[in-house]
């Protein structure tokens, strides 16, 4: 084990147990100050089906899920077969000896997990048996787990004590088994606890909270993996006077409802995944044309069509920026970490208010399902922007001029017609060439309001740079850090603001010899867009439905740079 960092995976037939185990491990360790990140993957089905959940625990901030496993808990033979090759040399496999038997080897030992759990009197303590064993293997201080268990199950109910006793017993039974196996992975170093309070939270919850923090009023959504949990969160928590949340009958209804709410003066939002985004195409075009603020979250999954509903991909970028017919260029914010889910959602609402139009947030399956520790957001520091509201007299020309103008709110002064046909200043339909020209300029001019120069950059003097986007940020950054440790000469750029791009960033990128873009899609979508803007960008693509591995990225980036230097490849 790298004694600053370890990765444990639980694998078997789907069901809650695996996920709970990984999350428990993350909770326990984060509570004592470790940095954690979990990852879950499962088939698009309700019960059963090959599933795994893992947790990465580290003494310093965690950027990716971890390429290799230190510990694999394989609950059935299929899980063993599928995952064993990912266990690093020197790692350990705990397999479910009730399900299958292995020849003795230097890596694995069997444990009769359910039997041990039952022997404590609490058959549901199988989790604890596994955790006990893992704690022993990584030399976790003995008191962490029992303390956690005691705290968690002290709920002031009669049976509490017994449950706590059973669970602690299960922990030590697990530990004993691990001890008997003779395996050990060396001691995990003490954590340098993150400063300030921390949350352990998943991407979708963070998106929801970020939006609520920025003043969200109305949320209407239709269930779809992996976006459903945003809707579920809102249904429970978007409360208070004037707030409204609802499950729609389809995504076409969602988009039209939220643009209705945006027109009526409210901050509105929906969340969906690719198929829903495709259905919203026409409605998004209307919001752009009629200049109505609203926000669409797209939690990307594998595409096209129904695609791979429970796998990760970043292949909705092109359709997010140009979702509909006609000249549109929809602002897109791509969140890259759980923390950015919070800040990105708030920024999206602000953007929508500021430029008075639709904004799309791109997240992905990976972010949606990973729990991670992030600093507790300071609500007093969240910037909340509100649209310019028209407060003058009637007779207002809402669509006058080629810049953003105060927006009337129904019930108040300045009645006009928000129109999806080309329009005159009061919103009546017109076909005059000069109006179409002016209004087209107006719609595109407004994007200038979003060109904040917010981006990350490092080693900006290098002529070769890496710039990833969205959920590939973590692994790419980890790869970058490794290469920096090796004194490679590469610049780093990153922004959430994919459209419009921060202008200064774009200028810098244009001056590079080569910009490499790791992204999880086939077409190399972001690199395409950058090339169209004059950047010599090239993608490093992957389209397996799984996230990048850091090691792969390091190799591919280095190879690409080497061949570039040899002048072998040109775009």
């Amino acid at each position, binding site marked *: 084990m790298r004694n600053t960092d370890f990765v444990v995976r639980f694998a078997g037939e789907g069901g809650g147990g695996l996920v709970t185990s990984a999350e428990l491990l993350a909770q326990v360790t984060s509570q004592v100050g470790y940095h954690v990140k979990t990852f879950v993957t499962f088939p698009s089905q309700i019960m059963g089906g090959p599933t795994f959940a893992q947790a990465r625990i580290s003494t310093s901030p965690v950027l990716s899920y971890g390429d290799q496993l230190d510990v694999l808990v394989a609950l059935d033979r299929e899980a063993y077969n599928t995952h064993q090759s990912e266990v690093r040399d020197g790692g350990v496999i705990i397999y479910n000896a009730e399900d299958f038997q292995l020849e003795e080897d230097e890596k694995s030992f069997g444990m009769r997990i359910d039997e041990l759990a039952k022997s404590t009197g609490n058959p549901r303590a199988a989790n604890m048996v596994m955790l006990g064993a893992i704690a022993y293997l990584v030399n976790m201080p003995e008191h962490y787990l029992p303390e956690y268990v005691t705290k968690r199950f002290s709920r002031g109910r009669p049976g509490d004590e017994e449950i706590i006793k059973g669970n602690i017993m299960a922990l030590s039974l697990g530990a004993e088994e691990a001890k008997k196996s003779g395996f050990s992975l060396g001691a995990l170093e003490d954590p340098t606890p993150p400063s300030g309070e921390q949350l352990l939270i998943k991407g979708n919850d963070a998106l929801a909270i970020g939006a609520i923090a920025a003043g969200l009023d*109305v949320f209407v959504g239709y269930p779809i993996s992996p976006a459903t949990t945003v809707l579920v969160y809102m249904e429970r928590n978007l*409360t208070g006077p004037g707030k409204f949340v609802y499950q729609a009958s389809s995504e076409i209804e969602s988009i039209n*409802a939220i643009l*209705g709410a945006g027109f009526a003066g409210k901050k509105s939002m929906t969340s969906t995944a690719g198929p829903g985004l495709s259905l919203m195409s026409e409605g998004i*075009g209307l919001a752009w044309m009629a200049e109505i603020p609203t926000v669409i979250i797209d939690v990307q999954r594998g595409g096209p069509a129904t695609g791979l509903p429970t796998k990760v991909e970043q292949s909705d970028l092109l359709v997010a920026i140009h979702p509909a017919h006609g000249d549109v260029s929809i602002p897109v914010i791509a969140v890259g970490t759980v923390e950015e889910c919070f800040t990105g959602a708030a920024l999206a609402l602000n953007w929508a208010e500021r430029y008075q139009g639709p904004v799309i947030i791109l997240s992905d399956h990976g972010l949606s399902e990973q729990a991670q520790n992030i600093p507790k957001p300071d609500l007093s520091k969240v910037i909340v922007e509100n649209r310019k509201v028209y407060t003058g007299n009637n007779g207002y020309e809402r669509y006058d001029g080629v810049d953003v103008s105060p927006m009337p709110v129904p019930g108040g002064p300045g009645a006009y017609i928000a129109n999806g046909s080309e329009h005159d200043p009061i919103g009546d*339909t017109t076909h005059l060439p000069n109006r179409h020209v002016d209004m087209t300029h107006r719609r595109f001019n407004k994007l200038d309001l979003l060109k904040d120069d917010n981006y990350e950059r490092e080693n900006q003097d290098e002529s070769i740079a890496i710039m990833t986007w969205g959920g590939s940020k973590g692994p790419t950054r980890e790869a970058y850090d490794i290469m920096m440790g090796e004194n490679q000469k590469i610049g780093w750029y990153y922004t959430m603001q994919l459209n419009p791009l921060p202008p200064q960033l774009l200028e810098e990128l244009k001056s590079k010899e080569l910009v490499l873009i790791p992204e999880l899609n086939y077409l190399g979508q972001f690199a395409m867009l950058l090339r169209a803007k004059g950047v010599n960008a090239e993608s490093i693509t992957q389209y397996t439905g799984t996230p990048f591995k850091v090691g792969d990225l390091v190799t591919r980036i280095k190879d690409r740079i080497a061949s570039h230097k040899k002048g072998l490849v040109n775009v």
Partner: protein
Amino acid sequence: MSKKNPEYDFKWCPGCGDFGVKRALEMAVQQRNVELEMPMANTVVVAGIGCSGNIVHLYDGEQPFGLHGIHGRSLPISFGVKMANPDLNVVVVSGDGDFLSIGGEHIAPMAQRNLNVTAVVMDNGVYGLTKGQSSPTTDLGVITPTTPFGKLENSLNPLELYLTLGVSFVASGFSSKIKELTNLINQGMKHPGFSVVHVQSPCTTYNDTYDLLKGNAKKGIDATVHDVPESHDPSSKQAAYNLLQEEGIPLGVIYQRDESDPLDQRFNVMREKANARDLDRQIAAFQI
């Protein structure tokens, strides 16, 4: 807001039924404003795409807010507007194609929710704006540019559809009976829940049904429309069904649910009972 911008170049054909509907709508809104002592700014007209939807641009006198969007989506837009601000008087104006064909999916959900908006549907049995193709209410066998050998589909009975879907106020009007229509639209606005006023509004260019509707003694045509009989009990769904089985098109209130609690009200009742957590408490729940 002053109107009649010279740039606006849409006009209805002479005799189009929509002129009458426009007048009735203007008066019904006016009445409603007086009843509630409400400014015009509280009214939002959400329009579909079609000759009918252009009513929002042709509206005379003091102007309400308008939203003229995309084909078939006026109901879901009105849903967002109304629930964003339940104090608004939200009216949908739509055509038979817009409301019943491409937008047909949106009626059932609004009925189940009992959304408190009023939909005025101008039924001319044809797609007017796109020049005369068949619509869901075009009769079987009718010849149009897209049914050159006769329409193959049975026509839909919209009033029966609204009833079955659970629309809580269903009325039937005729564009030539402006006073009655005004009254129906106004009653629809008063009704606390989803109200649909389905209007026979003939298209003089592609489907002139005036003779058929009003009757024409000279041509020996009997009128199709007739008033809902005084004896009709609009609170009885069964009576409403029976009424619709009879010949012709009854004009008046077909059905009005007695106890109609609109979605905004249901929502508030629910929210008062629900235990809300403010954002600080929500965040605390994730605290390590």
